[in-house]
């Protein structure tokens, strides 16, 4: 079944670029150029996710999201914001957005985040055991084994690995890692995230035949079952 996405964005170029991109990714896309029309479509229902610009003519993004939530809709919303300042993001999340992305962004990042939002409900099934191929993570005993052999991980490595395991088969961007694992909202100049990942890889892949964490060029990383 095709997934339905609503894009509310006043800039025509961006709107069409996003619509085209998501259509190619197999989404059924509806667009709205302003907040009023966006609210009309959103409350009409039937969308799996909404991409929403923070700055909109007519009805501003924050107001729109509040109206959507007030209408009782739980559709996941990703907010696009031109302002990179932290408090702007916080405002968006407080208003009821599920995620946000700072403009300018890469389409891959946005796609990865939308996929993550769509999969979110499955994440809520709390399981004490997370697995991927021959890797097993026991959250209660804080133990990780690869092909039956126990791995020694630092608490941070454990946390990163858990982050990946909970988002299996999905692209994880560096920014998502920074925010999700370290709760940092800035963009380090160095390739620090890559260093952390390669450290984790060394610990996880040591002695194994296939690497568990793949690099997705231009987008980030992915841990897949396949």
């Amino acid at each position, binding site marked *: 079944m095709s997934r339905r996405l609503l894009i509310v964005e006043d800039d025509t170029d961006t709107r069409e670029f996003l619509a085209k991109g998501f259509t190619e990714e197999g989404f059924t896309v509806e667009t709205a150029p302003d907040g009023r029309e966006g609210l009309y479509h959103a409350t009409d229902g039937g969308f799996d996710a909404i991409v929403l610009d923070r700055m909109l003519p007519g009805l501003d993004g924050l107001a729109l999201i509040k109206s959507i939530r007030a209408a009782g809709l739980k559709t996941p919303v990703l907010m696009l914001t031109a302002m990179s300042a932290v408090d702007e993001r916080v405002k968006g999340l407080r208003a009821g957005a599920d995620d946000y992305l700072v403009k300018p962004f890469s389409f891959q990042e946005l796609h990865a985040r939308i996929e993550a939002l769509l999969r979110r409900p499955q994440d809520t099934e709390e399981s004490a055991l997370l697995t991927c191929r021959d890797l097993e993570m026991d959250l209660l005993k804080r133990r990780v084994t690869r092909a039956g052999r126990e791995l020694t991980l630092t608490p941070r490595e454990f946390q990163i690995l858990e982050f990946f395991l909970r988002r299996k088969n999905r692209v994880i961007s560096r920014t998502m890692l920074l925010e999700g694992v*370290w709760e940092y909202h800035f963009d380090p100049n160095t390739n620090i995230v890559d260093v952390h990942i390669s*450290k984790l890889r060394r610990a996880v892949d040591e002695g194994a035949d296939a690497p568990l964490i793949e690099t997705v060029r231009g987008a980030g990383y992915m841990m897949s079952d396949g």
Partner: protein
Amino acid sequence: MAKPLILWRNARTRLVLASMVLSTALTALVLGLVYVTANRTIENETRSVVTAELAGLRDEYERLGTIGLMAAIDRRVKDAADRDALYLLTDAQGNVLAGNLARWPEGIEPGSGWVDLDLTKMSSGEDVSISAASIRLPLYERLLVGRDASARQQLDRVLLRSVGLALLAALALSLLTGWLLTRLVFSRLSDIAQTADDIVSGDLSRRIPVRGSGDEFDQMAQTLNDMLDKIEELIGNLRMTTNSIAHDLRSPLSRLRQRVESLTDPASAASDREADAARALAEVDHLLRVFSQLTEISRAEAGLGRDEFEDVDVDALVRDVTEFYEPVAADQDVQIVIEGTAGRGPGHKPLLAQALSNLLENALRYAPAGSTLTVALANVDEGLTLSVLDQGPGVPDEKLDRLAQPFVTLDPARTDQSSGLGLALVAAIARMHGGRFEARNRKPGLEAAITLAR
């Protein structure tokens, strides 16, 4: 340029005129009062003399009858000690019985109070102005006693002339003082206007002359000069930043242009194109990072986000960020140690984490392999201090002060990913927290420290 001066001169004219009108009006009021009072005193004097004389003559009449009164009047006219004294006694029909006036003035009813009259003197035939009072005696004779008013009128004229002269003098004097006073004020004002004009025409280094008298004008000039110093400094910084931005963005943009150009070249190999596209993307990412950092800096400078301040456990924050950089440090064979504690303080947690991250990245860029990087925390009178000490080459002393200015990097080639804005953002974040950024050479190494107000 002359326009404001003319306006000011107009203001000066208005001021001088206003002061003149005011002081002249005051003088006129005072002199007018003096004049009126003097006049009234003289008139009262005359009236009391005349009243006394009327009473005396009436006594004479009561004692010696009409004949006696006539004799008394004749005697008084003859004595003429007071040449201005005028007397007239007539019978009930108005025939003159005695006195030095030719006839009873027309229309004057005896006992009707004070009158001013123009009459003819009997002795000399000259016309006189008199002030007089009259009574009717018991046998209906009429008695009039007066005083020649011309002497008084002359005094009046003299008095009036003096008052006029005094007024003129006051006018001249107020003009002079007004002119002098406003010259004092307006010469200082025109100093300021001249300086402002020069600054407007582009000479930012001009300052208002201070005359050394320490008066209010000097104080104001000093305050304005301090303000001008600050403005000049800020404009200088801004100009440098703008120049640096223009300069700094030119190289990545021209590199980007080359990449895109070779992308459009149909002759180039697919693998080359792929590499070019990746590099172009990297250049764009670099530019975007520069812009977002510039935004962060100006937001921090403007103090935006102060409402997001919370009680921050600085020690825990430092442990977290340091741990985050440990793998990079380990790759470089650099050890990071934390010394001391700073405790808790109000702050913007994400921005503080970013500031420390920038400090660490900067230090790691210059830390040699095998060295130790120290993060020193302290809680002193000034506030919480957080310094990062590396054992790298340090910074040339003359560059220390400019370290936190945008786009100042030590390596002109700038081959790494540094935007040249990291420390500028650190300084802006420190200022936002009521503190400051400082860099010191420790020989060897550099100490980069921020202080946060408690």
